[in-house]
């Protein structure tokens, strides 16, 4: 009887309100379906592979998540990433230097520099973030193709340091037939970024400032937060993350083309973040949710064909996810504002 009461009084709605729970169960359900069709889906090897291939998107998603949290939106991060990548690899090839640290340094510097252009436009001129970054997306990408170059670099031209980085593993396991597979170093990098970002958001005044301006910008100003500085941090951090992602991406595919390899995936990344429960109007969401959102989007991407659907479905679903995600946020805020006037109990 007591157990029954406890079951009855537990507020399931509060659990369901957590988007993470919801996304987790969708992911679980999806995995079960895919595993039934293809039992190797849930193999350790495949999961390791999924982790590696979603690392890049996860890093970009964390950047987008922070921007959304502050009440803004950034769509230029893919152009930042491709610029960082291409400039870094081209410099290394021209100089004939084979050094991964230098590659990261160049890539992240380019990322931060381009991010600060966004930050400058947004914080000093107070331009709307969507329009600004839509503009810079085009400016950065067009500028790269015109001023830096548009010829791709193929596997043979790419310095060896990228190849070894792409193959680096935290540990290796041996298959039954004696060949080896392992967990990519990428997983550690993403873990590091998650921890750093989490600490910034949770335990620094800067991080709370990001939440604050996403919740109520005017109140944040009155409370004494330096909004310009916070926005500079946000957009530079997105650029920095794009710089890291750029090198990881290059090391994985070992082919650098400035035309259309990363640019064009903005919507998938934003969809992942929205799916993970970040409110598009700012102020709310979690890193865990963002990662789950990325996992779901990548799982979709990888398995649609397996499930007998054309890969165009991916594009279709990404758009749908954004619309549904935004609708849910809107509906929830509508419900909240109505609850304020209606009674809590039934008449």
């Amino acid at each position: 009887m007591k157990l029954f009461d406890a079951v009855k009084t537990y507020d399931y709605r509060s659990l369901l309100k957590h988007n993470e729970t919801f996304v987790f169960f969708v992911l679980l359900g999806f995995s079960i379906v895919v595993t039934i069709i293809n039992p190797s889906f849930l193999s350790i090897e495949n999961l390791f592979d999924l982790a590696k291939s979603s690392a890049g998107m996860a890093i970009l998603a964390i950047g987008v998540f922070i921007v959304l949290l502050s009440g803004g939106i950034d769509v230029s991060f893919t152009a930042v990433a491709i610029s960082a990548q291409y400039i870094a690899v081209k410099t290394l090839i021209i100089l004939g230097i084979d050094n991964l640290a230098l590659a990261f340094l160049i890539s992240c510097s380019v990322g931060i520099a381009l991010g600060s252009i966004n930050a400058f436009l947004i914080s000093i001129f107070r331009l709307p973030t969507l329009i600004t970054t839509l503009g810079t997306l085009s400016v950065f990408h067009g500028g790269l193709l015109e001023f830096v170059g548009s010829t791709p670099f193929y596997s043979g031209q790419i310095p060896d340091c990228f190849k070894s980085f792409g193959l680096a593993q935290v540990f290796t396991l041996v298959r039954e037939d004696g060949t080896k597979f392992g967990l990519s170093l990428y997983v550690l990098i993403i873990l590091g970024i998650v921890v750093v970002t989490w600490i910034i958001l949770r335990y620094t005044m800067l991080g709370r400032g990001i939440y604050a301006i996403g919740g109520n910008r005017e109140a944040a100003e009155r409370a004494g937060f330096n909004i310009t500085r916070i926005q500079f941090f946000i957009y530079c951090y997105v650029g920095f993350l794009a710089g890291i992602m750029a090198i990881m991406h290059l090391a994985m595919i070992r082919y650098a083309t400035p035309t259309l390899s990363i640019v064009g995936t903005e919507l998938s990344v934003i969809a992942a973040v929205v799916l993970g429960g970040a409110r598009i109007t700012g102020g709310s969401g979690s890193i865990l949710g963002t990662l789950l959102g990325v996992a779901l989007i990548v799982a979709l991407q990888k398995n649609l064909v397996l499930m007998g659907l054309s890969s165009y479905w991916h594009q279709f679903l990404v758009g749908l996810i954004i619309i549904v995600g935004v609708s849910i946020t809107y509906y929830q805020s509508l419900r909240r504002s109505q609850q304020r006037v209606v009674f809590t109990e039934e008449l």
Partner: protein
Amino acid sequence: MNENLLEIRNVSKAYVGVQALDKVDMTIRKGEIHCLVGENGSGKSTLIKVVAGVVRQDEGEIIINEKLYRYLHAIDSIREGVQIIYQDLSLFPNLTLAENISLNQEIERSRKVINWKDIKEIARHALDEIGEDLDLDERVENISVASKQLVAISRALTQDAKLIIMDEPTSSLTRDEISRLFNVITDLQKRGISTLFVSHKLSEVFEIAERVSILRDGKMVGTFNTEELDNDRLVYLMTGKKVESTIYKFDEKKKKAPLIEVRNLSKSRNFKNISFSVQEGEIVGITGLLGSGRSELALALFGMFPADSGEILLEGKRVSIENTQDAINAGIGYLPEDRLNQGLFIEHSITRNIIVTILEKLLNKFGFISAKKREELVHEWVNRLKVKTPNVESPAQSLSGGNQQRLVLAKWLATNPRVFILDGPTIGVDIASKATIHQIVRGLAENGMGIIIISDEIPEVLQNCNRVLVMAKGKIIHEVKDVTSVTEDEVFSIMSRKEAYEAV
């Protein structure tokens, strides 16, 4: 105890062409509850901003804690213990109560790192000081306006407040919540903290204030002990004119078939079995606490929030009202409670705001809007409702609160409604404009319109309506047939008494 905490001396401030403050003097004593009253545009908010150090005065000086400031910076003001609670409360809806209360202090101390234990302790301590126990882990967006108010006060206390300035704190609170707020203010007083209470609700001024300062057109009319004043005198001092209050009389003999009749109208969770009718020339008041269902009922009648069941009859004919277009076609007009969001296109011109409801009537034979018809109509309504504006092409936001409300009236009256519902018609409107609006409404009723006034200001409905319906928990619990037979207190106790709740 008679020491002055704050002294404002000879302060003047002019904005382009407008003298917002003209040689204003005012003092606030330690531990005093002081009210600042004045009509919209009298300079109240400019004065507060000068004290906050947000606006710099052109002339004059400010003395806080015996320190003289020629120019007061925002940071000085905070350091001297002045805390302002703005009307919008400046809270972060997405953060917890604990953070909302403690963050400002942490910023002021230039903390770079967050210690969550400290955050909670500061918040818990501040809430204890005002004797409130709220869930510190709850997000602010999930709590009531009254609780938000308490959070804002607690936040002020974390910064060693000596003077808390509250800008119109009661505008969205119910009677009970206001009493709770007043208890908190009196508690603060016992601890030597002064409160400057900015309000235009006079009954509250008399309830809480020890002294009252009155601003009119940027000039300080004077500071008075509350005992020296009564309602009429205060209104006179604020407006410079006598405002007559008479009761609206409806001629029972004219009684005909009802204009609008509502039968058993229900909407789940909002209101249940509402039946009433309104005759030609009647002004019927509906009053009740926030959440009694009064505004929801109005929205249902206007089709914005359609009812689940029940009937609405207009001049004896059953009409179905599923959306606002149905309501307008049936001859129902609605003046919304929140005129800024629902009533006006605030950035658009006065002309556009007036014609928006009746564009079809202005079309010429080619299907375009006739400039001549448009100008005639706008001219007519601006004159009839005495909207004060130099230019009908200026944006609606350039008008004062009272004139904006008249503009919303004009917009709906242009549709020639048979039944006109006014929800909180004088919220945020100053006294003189209030009287004008009431006069206009009476005039409409005398010309045969049926009027429903929804308001939580009991004096407003008792004075302007010939009948008053009292709502509680979604039901009509009482009907006042003769408004001269009851007092304000009696109506108030009907709508808030326990039995009323238990009876339904």
